[in-house]
């Protein structure tokens, strides 16, 4: 199966291990991810706050570029996924927006007809490839590993492919790898990533609630489906713990990294040691 791949800015540098592991896992599952030629930033929440029309147009350029190929667009970042999918949906629904975006695209010699199907990478694995196939490819079952499958917000809301309140795709994928998803009632709570620069204290409070739930339910690893959630929970974990008097030490992996471990992909290829929270014994057992 062939997909056009839109990595997004975070996966180029700060979460390169997400992209590396996604490419390695996909290859093993028989998925070819072809990077979209000359893609640009999706605008995320930040550009959208500044100017909506330009922000939608940024996404529309990517969609116009992707439309040249008759393939679905696979997106690993939840924020890019929502930005692109929202743009595609609103272009369909809102004639005035469609007209203005088309004018902007035309000025740049581009055109978008509205045919691109946008999918999150998790959606590709769980729905297109299927858990049975993944299960059959598992070489090393992650037996007994307690995993916190963290969805965050923008993969399931507002236009996600899973239940917006109680999604299960990542839980089921975890089980397919032989691991055990923990009881995690706030698995779709916001990580506060978009506030961490502008209102750190508030963002830390949101992260603290997540980390408390995860550690309280004895998770040995958190897996994320978004580079921004990963950064929030990994890079800031120590600071959040310090602020609230907890000694959190829960490694955070991109979900593709955990898949890679079960598929016996060399850990170096997965960038497994690029997190700031050191790996624990439960994880090193699989490396």
């Amino acid at each position: 199966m062939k997909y056009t791949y839109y990595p997004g800015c975070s996966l180029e540098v700060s979460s390169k291990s997400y992209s590396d592991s996604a490419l390695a896992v996909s290859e093993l599952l028989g998925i070819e991810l072809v990077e979209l030629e000359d893609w640009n930033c999706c605008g995320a929440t930040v550009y959208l706050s500044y100017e909506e029309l330009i922000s939608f147009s940024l996404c529309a350029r990517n969609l116009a570029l992707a439309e040249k190929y008759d393939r679905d667009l696979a997106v690993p970042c939840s924020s890019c996924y929502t930005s692109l999918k929202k743009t595609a949906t609103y272009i369909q629904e809102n004639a005035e927006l469609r007209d203005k975006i088309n004018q902007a695209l035309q000025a740049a010699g581009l055109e978008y007809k509205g045919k691109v199907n946008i999918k999150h990478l998790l959606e590709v694995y769980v729905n297109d490839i299927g858990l049975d196939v993944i299960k059959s490819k598992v070489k090393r079952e992650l037996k007994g590993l307690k995993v916190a499958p963290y969805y965050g917000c923008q993969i399931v809301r507002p236009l996600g492919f899973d239940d917006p309140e109680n999604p299960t795709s990542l839980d089921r994928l975890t089980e397919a790898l032989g691991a055990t998803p923990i009881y995690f009632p706030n698995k779709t709570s916001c990580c506060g990533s978009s506030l961490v620069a502008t209102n750190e204290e508030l963002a830390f409070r949101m992260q603290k609630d997540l980390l408390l739930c995860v550690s309280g339910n004895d998770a040995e690893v958190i897996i994320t489906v978004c580079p921004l959630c990963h950064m929030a929970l990994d890079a800031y974990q120590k600071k959040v713990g310090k602020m609230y008097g907890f000694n959190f030490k829960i490694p955070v992996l991109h979900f593709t990294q955990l898949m890679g471990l079960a598929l016996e992909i060399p850990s170096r290829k997965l960038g497994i040691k690029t997190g700031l929270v050191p790996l624990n014994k439960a994880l090193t057992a699989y490396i």
Partner: protein
Amino acid sequence: MKDKMSILVVDDEPIMCDSCKKILTEKGFTVETALNGEEALKKFKKGDFDIVIVDLKMPGVDGMEVLRSVKKSKPEVDVVMITGYGTIPSAVEAMKLGAADYVPKPFTPEELGQIISQVVEERSKLVAEKAPKKGAILLDVFKKPSKVAYHPERVWVKDIKIEEALDENFLNEVRSTPGGERVMDCMQCGTCSGSCPISYRMDYTPREINAMVRAGLRDEVLSSNSIWMCSSCYLCTVRCPRQIKITDIMYALKNLAMKDKRFLKKAKSPLLSKYFVDIVNRYGRNHELELTLKFFLRANPRAILKHSLMGLRLFLRKRFSLFPKRIKNINQLRTMIRKAEALGGLR
């Protein structure tokens, strides 16, 4: 306020009444006189006076009695006491009863004119303060209980000022945004505010913001921290029983606030957005290191020091790049952005 303010002068000396009437008429007031307390109260009851000037010592109903009656029936009327027997206790008592001023006899026409001018000035200030401001009635409803006593009954206060407060264009601006179309469907159930992980820290909760948008309280909404606190998690949107896209409304409000510097004084998010936009417009992609440094240098330089170790650890793991990644066809992107700008946005 009336065009001409009217004054009642009360003194048992006819010459005093006449001279006061002459001085004040010249100054543009409508003046009536009374020669004793009884006559004064009768005239006061019938007439519509703004100021009463009354002699303290009079046979029968004296000045203090007149002051008391006037203040009891119409507390908004100003009373100036005049007397030839100025003593401290009587002055204190008169002020306690609410006299606006206390003038000992004899006084020159200028002195009388000056005192009355002062009283008039104070009155106009008070009238201006008491007059309902644009949106004032509605705003009371939206204030948090901690700031102002909450009067749910005021929700139903009918005041012609409400119409004046409506900035219908504000509502239209929000409705014309993708996602903002259904704001009028809000039934104020508060599911959005109850779901929002941050509403407890907002000046106004999402439910209140919806109501305020509809009421046309533009300045209050756009200067509130609520719009910048929204972390865009869309929980409100997916839970709203009326399918109102509240997160999108927040984006519309951020965009509107961005266009007016008055609203951006306190919030840091607009600054982050501005730097982000600059970077994306320049390279076509985000450059995380540049954005982080630029933003914190301006918004919170101490944070750079505070997070320097974390930054270094990320850098050592190659999670920060010193150089930006650029797209090849940046000119195409810029042409598109310029065109979108020329189209004047969504509103």
